[in-house]
């Protein structure tokens, strides 16, 4: 029977099936960070369990680490304690760890692919919902809870239920000024923030062939914001070229053997999907969010909907609450809305191509007075590459703070926060209430759009800014 890529990845990892429809799945790789694993190690230690295959794991601190003063000890005692605990735990279990002062340190979903820890055809789990990112390589990758992190380390397996197949067709070519962040926001607005729950998304369409790995990672990263725990893009020549010679990628004959297998990783032509959604790229405008759910996304020039007119009263009620929280009115346009803070970074948009896109907008321009703008590279390597290209100068000359790598203002648990009522143009993935700090107001958008907001001090259609230049 014809199979989808997801079917193939799933079937090649089934250890056994259970009567209730769930299966035991072998997990090839596990990424760990400091926030979701302290309790996992407690559960293992209590049972006297050891990591079954320490080398199948890779640990790094990213969520709670400061992005300034990295030569000094972590100032927040709780964050310091959490990172220290990770170091103790991985040492005891002989799990490889990338230290804070190592140039490879970075956000798990930036560092993993960079190191070649992420490979096509594997199952990869991590105690972080944005693990869907790694699906950009044709890996079956999904976020798990802390209990499951312990189970993976101890057994190399997880009980899971196979998801339904959902095909997301990107129709047409990428218009100028559009990014995969805009496509992701459009998709989430179309299906809803939990609309793809229970589904594994596979992106298909001619536009993918011309996309770099970073753009693909952004697309897969945001799938969880549509509810899909798994997102996939079939690996191709771009994928293989990106991975070749990465430190942890296979070498020599093993590379050749792996490559031969990876080239088979695609959906059969006649494979059937449970659901299909089409996103027409032609005429798609840059998007931004206005509310407190990623599904509250609109083209930058569109008016904010009126909750009173919503056909779904529950959604209308949530929208009303969201508008109050965001300090906005129905009918108001996002374009021209003043911002206080601009954040460029995160596992969604903290890679080299993202920084290049933002720098291209910022070159020769200045951040509007009164706007606090920070850029947080996704990893130490991204930072070094950006510096080698002189991007740090462009950012600094424009008035941005140039930080060290981490999750920073995306999850706002490392001290990088926005104040109550402050409005932030952010390249992160969630605009939930309080996500960037209690009472903070988040508008999600692409790096180029965030850079444009920094320059004008208001939410701006980056295409117009380009035209002005």
């Amino acid at each position: 029977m014809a199979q989808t890529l997801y079917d193939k990845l799933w079937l090649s990892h089934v250890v056994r099936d259970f009567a209730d429809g769930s299966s035991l799945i072998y997990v090839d790789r596990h990424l760990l960070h400091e926030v979701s694993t302290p309790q996992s190690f407690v559960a293992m230690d209590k049972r006297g369990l050891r990591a079954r295959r320490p080398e199948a794991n890779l640990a790094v601190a990213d969520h709670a680490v400061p992005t300034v003063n990295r030569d000094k000890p972590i100032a927040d005692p709780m964050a310091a304690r959490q990172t220290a605990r990770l170091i103790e735990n991985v040492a005891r279990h002989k799990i490889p760890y990338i230290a804070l002062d190592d140039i490879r340190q970075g956000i798990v979903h930036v560092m993993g692919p960079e190191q070649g820890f992420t490979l096509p055809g594997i199952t990869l789990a991590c105690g972080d919902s944005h693990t869907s990112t790694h699906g950009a390589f044709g890996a079956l990758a999904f976020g798990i809870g802390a209990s499951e992190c312990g189970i993976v380390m101890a057994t190399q397996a997880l009980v899971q239920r196979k998801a339904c197949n959902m095909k997301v067709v990107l129709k047409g070519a990428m218009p100028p000024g559009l990014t995969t962040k805009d496509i992701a926001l459009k998709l989430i607005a179309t299906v809803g923030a939990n609309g793809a729950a229970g589904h594994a998304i596979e992106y298909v369409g001619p536009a993918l062939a011309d996309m770099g790995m970073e753009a693909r990672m952004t697309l897969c990263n945001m799938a969880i914001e549509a509810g899909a725990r798994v997102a996939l893009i079939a690996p191709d020549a771009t994928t293989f070229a990106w991975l070749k010679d990465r430190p942890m990628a296979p070498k020599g004959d093993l590379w050749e053997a792996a490559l031969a297998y990876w080239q088979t990783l695609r959906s059969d032509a006649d494979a059937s999907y449970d659901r299909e959604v089409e996103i027409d790229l032609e005429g798609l405008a840059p998007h931004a969010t206005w509310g407190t759910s990623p599904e509250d996304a609109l083209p930058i020039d569109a008016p904010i909907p009126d909750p009173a007119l919503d056909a779904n009263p529950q959604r209308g009620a949530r929208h009303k609450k969201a508008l109050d929280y965001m300090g906005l009115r129905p009918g108001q346009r996002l374009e021209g809305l003043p911002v206080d803070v601009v954040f460029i970074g995160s596992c969604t948009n903290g890679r080299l191509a993202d920084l290049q896109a933002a720098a291209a907008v910022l070159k020769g321009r200045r951040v509007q007075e009164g706007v606090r703008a920070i850029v947080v590279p996704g990893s130490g390597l991204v930072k070094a590459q950006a510096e080698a290209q002189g991007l740090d100068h462009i950012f600094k000359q424009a008035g941005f703070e140039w930080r060290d790598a981490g999750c920073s203002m995306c999850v706002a648990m490392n001290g990088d926060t926005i104040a109550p009522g402050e409005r932030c143009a952010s390249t992160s993935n969630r605009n939930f209430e309080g996500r960037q700090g209690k009472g903070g107001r988040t508008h999600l958008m692409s790096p180029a759009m965030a850079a444009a907001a920094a320059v004008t001090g208001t939410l701006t259609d980056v295409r117009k800014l380009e035209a002005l230049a």
Partner: protein
Amino acid sequence: MITPLTRITSRAAYFPETNIDTDIIFPARYLLRLEREGLGECAFRDRRFTSEGAEIADFPLHRDGWRGAQAIVAGPGFGCGSSREHAVWALVDFGIRLVIAPDFGDIFAGNAVKNGLLVLRLPKEVCDDLGRKADEGAQFELDMQAQTLCVDGMKVCDLGLSEEVQQAFLNGWDETDVILNRDLPAIEAFESGHKLRQPWLFA
């Protein structure tokens, strides 16, 4: 460590809004804690208390008669967002053992079952109706042995859990132990074959 779930007899608090995410259930600033115990005080923190620390009276679980309720009826998308298991630990520590909604965040739902929190998917019309009844103070009765949910004495549905899942709830079994006791030989057998098929993953 997991408290068995045999029976609930309780009012239910109604949260009609869509997409109550895990940041609402468990704000990120508490994620620096290293423990999984005692997190109930963080549950819905910013919905329960003002910035000044005053209790918000109209929070569904603060209403007279609903304090200590063990069940929640929610809108679609409950638990969407982050993978933080803290959201489940906090709810359970707060006393919640049952959440009924049209659908849930996938990772949240997976975490729930590992911690004795039953998430029950019911059609949206049924959830809306149960929500109204919950607001009127109806008694929700869950019988894990019989696998039934009754509201004010009227049966709403069978739970439809597999026997394994039912037994895990009844006995407070932990999935780690289940896999260790049952599946290690199968994992070893799979691993040897996998090593031959994809040797580059074991180099």
